[in-house]
């Protein structure tokens, strides 16, 4: 089986400081990988390099494109990379405001992604929008409201609907449940699990919440100071951590 994403020796430096370095992994279709580590460990830098938002200084990020198989997204042209960003890739930001147009209606936010891939029929776009709002539990009568009129949790669900409406194959998520009430977080986790299962999505999730990765991710990568210190099956890394830092991280979680 061809991996969906193949990362080889990826590195990003900020001057003399390390953003992330020596990162290599394969992600297969349908797999969900979590990246954990404390703030400043390089996990968001890595995610942004993978998603083409930051140019890495070294290494390759090969994506299994629909037409040409594995292509290095670091060296492909900007228009090609942007095309991937609107079609096969999705990026869910930590702050929904960064991923939404705040002064456009909820339906418009979802429809815009469709129009970017050449959907033109107004009726079709609107019915897809209603369908997706329903899947993320936003009722159809809110379709003409702007995200500014939504709660934080609703904005986050709208962002997910906007991202998934074009049927991407790979979703990047940066702290998707950060800053949400635990009650909203639980519903979002269930939603994401269902989407991964039913659509066969692959996802890379950056978070510092170990409970979230345990429930969502098949595999886990632990980062510290820009380096990957441990990788493995999520429950194995959490239940039998090998690296000193991972042991510290796991043993520091407060019990409820």
């Amino acid at each position, binding site marked *: 089986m061809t991996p969906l994403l193949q990362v080889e020796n990826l590195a990003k430096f900020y001057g003399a400081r390390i953003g992330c370095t020596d990162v290599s992994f394969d992600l297969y279709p349908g*797999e969900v990988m979590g990246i954990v580590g404390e703030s400043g460990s390089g996990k968001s830098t890595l995610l942004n390099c993978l998603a083409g938002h930051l140019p890495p200084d070294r290494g390759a990020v090969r994506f299994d494109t629909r037409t040409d198989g594995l292509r290095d997204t670091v060296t492909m042209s900007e228009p090609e990379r942007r095309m991937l960003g609107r079609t096969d890739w999705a990026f869910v930001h930590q702050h929904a405001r960064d991923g939404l147009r705040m002064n456009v209606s909820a339906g418009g936010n979802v429809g815009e992604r469709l129009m970017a891939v050449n959907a033109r029929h107004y009726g079709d776009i609107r019915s897809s929008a209603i369908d997706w709002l329903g899947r993320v539990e936003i009722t159809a009568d809110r379709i003409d409201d702007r995200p500014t009129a939504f709660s934080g949790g609703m904005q986050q669900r709208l962002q997910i609907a906007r991202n998934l409406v074009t049927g991407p194959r790979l979703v990047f998520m940066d702290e998707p449940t950060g800053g949400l009430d635990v009650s909203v977080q639980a519903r979002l986790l*269930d939603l994401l699990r269902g989407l991964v299962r039913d659509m066969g999505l692959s996802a890379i999730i950056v978070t510092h919440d170990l409970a979230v990765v345990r*429930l969502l991710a098949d595999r886990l990568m632990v980062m510290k100071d820009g380096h990957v210190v441990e990788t493995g*099956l999520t*429950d*194995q890394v959490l239940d*039998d951590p090998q690296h*000193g830092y991972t*042991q510290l991280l796991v*043993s520091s979680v407060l019990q409820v």
Partner: protein
Amino acid sequence: MISVENVSKNFVLHNQGGTTIPVMAGASLHVAKGECVALVGASGAGKSTLMRMIYGNYLTAAGRIMVGDVDVAQAAPREVIALRRRTLGYVSQFLRVVPRVPTLDVVAEPLLLTGTGQEQARAQAAELLARLNIPERLWGLSPTTFSGGEQQRVNIARGFAFAYPALLLDEPTASLDPTNRAVVLGMIKEAKARGAAIIGIFHDHAARDDICDRQVDVTRFTPGLAA
């Protein structure tokens, strides 16, 4: 079906002075299809550790753990995931679920993951829950609010939803009343009859003697404890 060959394991505690604790050495064990083997030994002897190593939840330092044709000790994460999806089931002592997901969906999930349709999966889940005497009015609620015995039965229903060829059972009858204990023992016997290879930990000795063909004392695999 399950074959553990000369397996060992240490825990290294990096944050506690780098203490190394050898917990298992020279463990070997074979379970054929349709056979049920009980792991016995005092608390702390390593029964659960061995079971977790077979499930890929704990890493193995040396040796081979074959489940079907996969060596769990060497397998890549995605191979272990595929193995757990279709081959190797595990009923742990604790239920771990996404909060607020209805019990019926919790039980149906292993079926959905293996390609059973939504309706069929839910029907089968309902059948299992009914058999395990979980009242129907609870099916739409999250099991996180259930009593200990109810949670355990939900866990068992989930573990038996898909007909795995190999099963690991960690204290499946603890905290069950006699009626439900009999139901669970019946389910384990049915799994044996359809050819599942089963490894179990039972503190309930009557249950163990009723369903297990053999016992393996893990004390002989415990470094420093072996006679």
